[in-house]
């Protein structure tokens, strides 16, 4: 994809970053549960 303005380039990259941010929030929740959900003998 070719961009002729910094503005268009940022619109594109920030759009992807926003999607990743949503993914991170979901992933962080799930990963926390994975991390904290192991053997409960010693947490």
């Amino acid at each position, binding site marked *: 994809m070719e961009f002729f303005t910094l*503005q268009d380039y940022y*619109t594109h990259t*920030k*759009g992807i*970053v*926003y999607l990743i941010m949503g993914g991170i*929030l979901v992933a962080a*929740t799930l990963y*926390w549960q994975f991390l904290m959900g192991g053997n409960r003998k010693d947490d």
Partner: protein
Amino acid sequence: MSTVEHASAQRKSLFTPFNIVAAIILAAGLVVTVMRFTGGLGAVTNLDQNNPWGIWIGFDLLCGVALAAGGYTTSSACYIFGLKKYHAGVRPAILTAFLGYALVVFALGYDVGRPWRLPYPIFVQQGTTSLLFEVGLCVMIYLTVLFIEFTPAAFEWLGFKKIRNIVVKMTLALTIFGVVLSTLHQSSLGALYTIVPSKLHPLWYSPYLPLFFFVSSICAGLSMVIFEGTLSHKPMHHLMDKEYLDNHDGLILGFGKGCSLILFGYFAIKVIGLAYDNNWHYLATGYGAWFLVEILGFVALPSFLYAIGARDRNIPLIKWAAGLTVFGIIVNRFNISMVAFNWQLPSQLRYFPSWGEITISLFVVTIGVLAFRFISTRMPIFYEHPDYKGEH
């Protein structure tokens, strides 16, 4: 019981001075509302081609969001930092925050030209390079988070045990989401102005604007919890349970101490901002004097008063410091959005709010106070529901 007796007493004395003033404001607000949506923005506001943003942005949005920061500061103190003794303060703070954000969105309905299109930036076409997109997205999600955080009170009131317990289990995740979203949109409100170095006075323009807004929002949140606790103490006293009352002074002392330290940090970064852009020479101008009033009178002074109050365990002094801090945050947001904005324009082209704009702002605040009173006199806000006592 006593609450019931009181409620009936309240019904009898409907014509209290407070209620009469509130009714007048509501009536005036409805009139202006009709004018606004039939005649357009021009019919009720002093906005013009040079001054597109007035107090509906400067007060309703910027101050509203900053002063609703008590929600994330209190809930994170209790649930993330493990300060369980502040637990009794969480529900009033969450309710205030939820109402605050709901009213911010409500007030935006007056300010934007076509309010029915407010979901467009999120669902129709995303302007991802705009800081306002960031603000809108965060405010929308955070309003949802606050609503969910508030629901346990409503569910306890309605007796929905199962769903209440499910929501309570999500407390930690909701709190962390709340802090993430608050950090983002509080700072992005400041970042809105990073695009206008040519219109905002150099003393207030800074690349650190997002950080200034975020740090000052913590001060605003903590102070607002103290300030509002003071306000609701008398009229709501009969509703407050032993836990709330026993911990109230401890909360005021703890929050006062914390706020003193953060205000110190805020003062420090404001001075750094001054040095970073080499703006010292502006201090000798009229704007400079006003800037000094802001950072000395409304940042350094309350920080010091808080410290004295915390050292001497002087609760009234801490309450005064909280009021001063809240006022100072409003001064700061007004300076950035109005006083120091468009400073390059001659005075006859500058903005001053119209009566219609002031009426709507009062209208919105009044709705907030009434809604808070309505909910907190019915739902378990200042006391723990007997079925769920000591469960935290």
